[in-house]
């Protein structure tokens, strides 16, 4: 029944196509297009002295070679700074092709267009660029020291500096009975979708129109950017996101240099041009994230309640800041999780380094904030000798306190105000699932077998579904086919299924009749994009509203034709019928015919509708002033603020006493994203998020050497988890509906990855008995920590020692 579609684990409608090779990803399009390839900087920081392309001219099949000097007008200007912020006093963006200077390895310097990619790369190899190397800034410590500058006009390498404070933190720290200082760090990782970026551009010279395909998370954004850069009317540019092989954040930044250059070249050459990013390019010229250093100072009472929390952190934003300071703003606000410190101050510095730029990667700054907060919670518990879950629960915001305003400004510039959530209930479920209170028995048993085990916990709150808006458009054809369009894009989230579920449910039509299009500016020109766990919240609600508008219109038309009141009608399985008298009915297809006074009998539905043709009133216009032809509904959803999902994870790990190998024995998730449209898909999102979190906790890092070379820029060396590294994930769901939107939903896309590093660190610390303050952690690093611990350089946790003097974290406040 259609009424059961919403909330059901409906199988995905996109899958038969994707399972049989019918997917259409970027590189599956444009057969015969010319191929672009790029000469990229081998230096992290250098001045370009000369570019000699003569060697490339011998390559058969070469079509064009472009350097910065060839770029006209706005193509030659720096790429846009998408999200300015008053605190971002020194925002810098790159040129589409480097002008005079390169600031990271991988920055594009020369563009080559040739008959195919092999030949384009042949040509690239033959181009000689002469560089004068400049001093290189790699790593947050070097950026802070600022002995050298990434951009000579940015003092101290500081792109942005921002402070938010609620209450008087210094006074609260001074008055607190207990204080601790923690120094924490999280290394770089990256979204690393299996499909890299890619762009295909077709210039239609006859029409003066550009059709652009991009493996992007925002087709409307790319469209507007390219129209502006190429000085084309928006009406002459369309952008379509085809099937996209994963995004995880990296494809929301736009326009990438290639998104400007490929369409520019296509128009100039009047040929179809395509660029498909290879894996090495993705490592060295797409975006990374995560790298931050934190200093936390915390004051608390005898029960472990947070009296003062002072967080200072240093964020590595790479060479440029096209996406503003969204990531550190999210870190600084979402760090608070489900807790309510009496006073909070967060101060961050966003710093330039000569490395790949930093834009959001799934979680978008939250994993680092969660790590800082949850490491602090564990440290408080250890200091007081209180159960770690208990300390957390003592600081929870309670359901009765919702909505809860944290007093900060969130990433969207609006108050950080939690809409709902039941944190005590979430924790209770998690403790039951992982058998929290029985772990001591398990540990003793394991110890008797010579095994070392530990349990960890982590809690988070995630702002999801940020605005400003998304739109939905629904049209019923005379055949009864329901065409649904929303402008945001899809990268594997099952939008063709979940949005069809929403519309089928709201409209009362079979799921099979609903066909969803996403990310196509021809179908929905107003849209924002898929990021910030916002698609279900934003487009789901927009489509629900559009469906309700369409339903009202369908009922009005049918009521008139059937000569009944609209209240007496219902729509079931695509048929409008009189309640209690289902024989009196007409299909939605027939209603669609009737909605259009131009009624050629092209099909059976049009013929059938003629029987309902009313009296031809000469005093009435065929389409009334307040009406439109067609059975369509369109609406936008624009919330006043974000919704706030939450969750808590726990893990049991085993660390090898000899080799320091780390194995996750159990991984438990309790997750609350409000009302679920499709629990199967939500669960899949959680699994994938946890897997990325495990990668970030134990395996993934970007290994830059001191000269700014990324040493592990391949899947051989960057250790993305295989099935052998990801544990079985146990999940449970709470559904605390959001009061903010018609469907009661909150986002789920990013949640899984947020607390994983915090949870694994907590578990390893519990197993080892000394503090874990830096993630990811490899067996080699754990082994080294053990050695330092045994040498007395690394103190024990209080709960692992009888000596109260050997505190793991300094109890005096250390100045940052």
């Amino acid at each position: 029944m259609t009424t059961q579609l919403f909330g059901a684990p409906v199988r995905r409608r996109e899958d038969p196509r994707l399972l049989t090779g019918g997917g259409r990803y970027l590189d599956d399009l444009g057969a015969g297009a010319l191929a672009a390839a790029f000469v990229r900087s081998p230096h992290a920081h250098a001045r370009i002295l000369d570019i000699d392309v003569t060697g490339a001219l011998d390559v058969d099949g070469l079509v064009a070679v472009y350097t910065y000097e060839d770029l006209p007008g706005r193509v030659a200007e720096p790429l846009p700074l998408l999200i300015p912020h008053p605190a971002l006093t020194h925002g810098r963006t790159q040129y589409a092709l480097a002008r005079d200077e390169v600031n990271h390895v991988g920055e594009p310097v020369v563009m080559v267009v040739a008959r195919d990619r092999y030949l384009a790369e042949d040509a690239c190899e033959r181009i000689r660029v002469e560089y004068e190397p400049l001093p290189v800034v790699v790593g947050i410590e070097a950026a802070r020291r600022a002995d050298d500058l990434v951009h000579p006009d940015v003092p101290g390498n500081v792109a942005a500096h921002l402070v938010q404070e609620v209450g008087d933190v210094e006074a609260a720290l001074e008055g607190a009975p207990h204080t601790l200082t923690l120094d924490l760090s999280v290394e770089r990782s990256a979204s690393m979708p299996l499909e890299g970026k890619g762009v295909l551009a077709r210039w239609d010279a006859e029409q003066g129109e550009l059709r652009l395909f991009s493996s992007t998370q925002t087709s409307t954004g790319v469209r507007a950017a390219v129209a502006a850069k190429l000085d084309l009317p928006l009406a002459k540019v369309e952008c379509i996101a085809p099937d996209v092989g994963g995004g995880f954040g990296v494809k929301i930044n736009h326009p990438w240099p290639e998104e400007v250059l490929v369409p520019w070249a296509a128009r100039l050459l009047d040929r179809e041009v395509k660029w498909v990013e290879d894996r090495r390019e993705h490592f060295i010229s797409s975006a990374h994230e995560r790298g931050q250093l934190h200093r936390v100072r915390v004051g608390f009472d005898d029960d472990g309640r947070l009296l003062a929390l002072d967080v200072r952190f240093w964020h590595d934003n790479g060479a440029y800041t096209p996406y503003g300071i969204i990531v550190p703003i999210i870190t600084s606000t979402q760090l608070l999780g489900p807790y309510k410190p009496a006073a909070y101050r967060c101060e961050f510095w966003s710093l330039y380094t000569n490395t790949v730029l930093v834009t959001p990667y799934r979680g978008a700054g939250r994993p680092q904030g969660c790590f800082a907060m949850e490491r602090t919670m564990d440290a408080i518990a250890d200091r007081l000798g209180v159960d770690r879950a208990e300390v957390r629960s003592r600081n929870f915001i309670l359901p009765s306190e919702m909505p809860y305003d944290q007093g900060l400004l969130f990433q969207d510039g609006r108050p950080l105000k939690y809409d709902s959530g039941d944190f005590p209930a979430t924790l209770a479920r998690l403790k039951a699932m992982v058998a929290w209170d029985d772990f001591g028995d398990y540990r003793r048993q394991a110890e008797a077998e010579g095994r070392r085990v530990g349990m960890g916990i982590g809690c988070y709150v995630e702002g999801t579904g940020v605005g400003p808006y998304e739109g939905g458009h629904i049209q019923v054809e005379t055949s009864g086919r329901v065409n649904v369009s929303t402008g945001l894009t899809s990268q594997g989230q099952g939008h063709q299924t979940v949005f069809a579920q929403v519309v089928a449910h709201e409209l009362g039509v079979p799921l099979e009749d609903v066909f969803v299009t996403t990310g196509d500016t021809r179908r929905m020109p107003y849209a924002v994009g898929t990021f910030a766990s916002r698609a279900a919240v934003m487009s789901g609600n927009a489509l629900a509203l559009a469906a309700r508008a369409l339903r009202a219109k369908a009922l009005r038309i049918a009521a008139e034709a059937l000569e009944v009141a609209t209240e007496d009608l219902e729509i079931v399985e695509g048929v409008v019928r009189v309640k209690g008298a289902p024989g009196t009915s007409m299909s939605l297809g027939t209603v669609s015919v009737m909605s259009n006074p131009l009624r050629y009998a092209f099909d059976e539905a049009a013929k059938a509708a003629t029987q309902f043709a009313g009296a031809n009133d000469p005093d009435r216009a065929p389409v009334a002033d307040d009406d439109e032809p067609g059975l369509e509904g369109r609406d936008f959803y624009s919330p006043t603020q974000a919704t706030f999902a939450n969750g808590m994870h726990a893990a049991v790990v085993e660390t090898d006493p000899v080799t320091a190998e780390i194995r996750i024995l159990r991984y438990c998730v309790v997750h609350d994203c409000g009302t679920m449209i499709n629990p199967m898909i939500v669960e899949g999102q959680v699994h994938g998020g946890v897997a990325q979190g495990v990668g970030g906790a134990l395996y993934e890092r970007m290994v830059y050497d001191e000269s700014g070379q990324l040493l592990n820029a391949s899947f051989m060396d960057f250790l993305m988890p295989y099935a052998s590294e990801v544990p079985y994930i146990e999940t449970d769901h709470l559904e605390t509906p959001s009061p903010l939107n018609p469907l009661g939903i909150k986002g789920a896309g990013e949640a899984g990855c947020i607390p994983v590093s915090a949870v694994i660190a907590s578990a390893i610390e519990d197993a080892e008995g000394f503090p874990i303050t830096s993630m990811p952690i490899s067996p080699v690093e754990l082994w080294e920590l053990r050695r330092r611990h045994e040498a007395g350089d690394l103190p024990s946790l209080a709960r692992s020692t009888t000596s109260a003097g050997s505190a793991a974290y300094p109890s005096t406040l250390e100045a940052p």
Partner: protein
Amino acid sequence: MSEPMVEQLLDVTVTVNGRPRHARVPARRLLSDFLRHDVGLTGTHVGCEHGVCGACTVLVDGAPMRSCLMFAVTAQAYAVTTVEGLGSMDGLGPVQQAFLECHGLQCGFCTPGFLTTVTAFLCDNPDPTEGQAREAISGNLCRCTGYQNIVRSVLRAAELRAEAT
């Protein structure tokens, strides 16, 4: 300017999904590019071009191989099966059906490599344990699913194969 560098082209014929497919390509043409761009079977995807991710896995005489690590000319002596050869929209093969039922895919980019890998695995081990199923897919990268539903898909595919015989 010196003589233009012109590549020698070779007549290459590879049996793909039971049909001989021909193209004139240079010796360095990768089998993955031959399948995708010369034959037009774009279901085989390229995720890393260095043989690690497994997205481009095809069956070569029934054995899973990385088509990005093989030249088209080398493949001439063999029968190649791609994802398009495992079933159709109207008639999904058992492995495809299992992935559909178990939500074994999200973005779908890595999926063809998993489908071919699992197809070959189940020929060798028609009734695997969960551990064996996980081991069987542990040479393929997926960034979306966390693998859990892929493991379930392998086990379900084994059931479907058993039911079909």
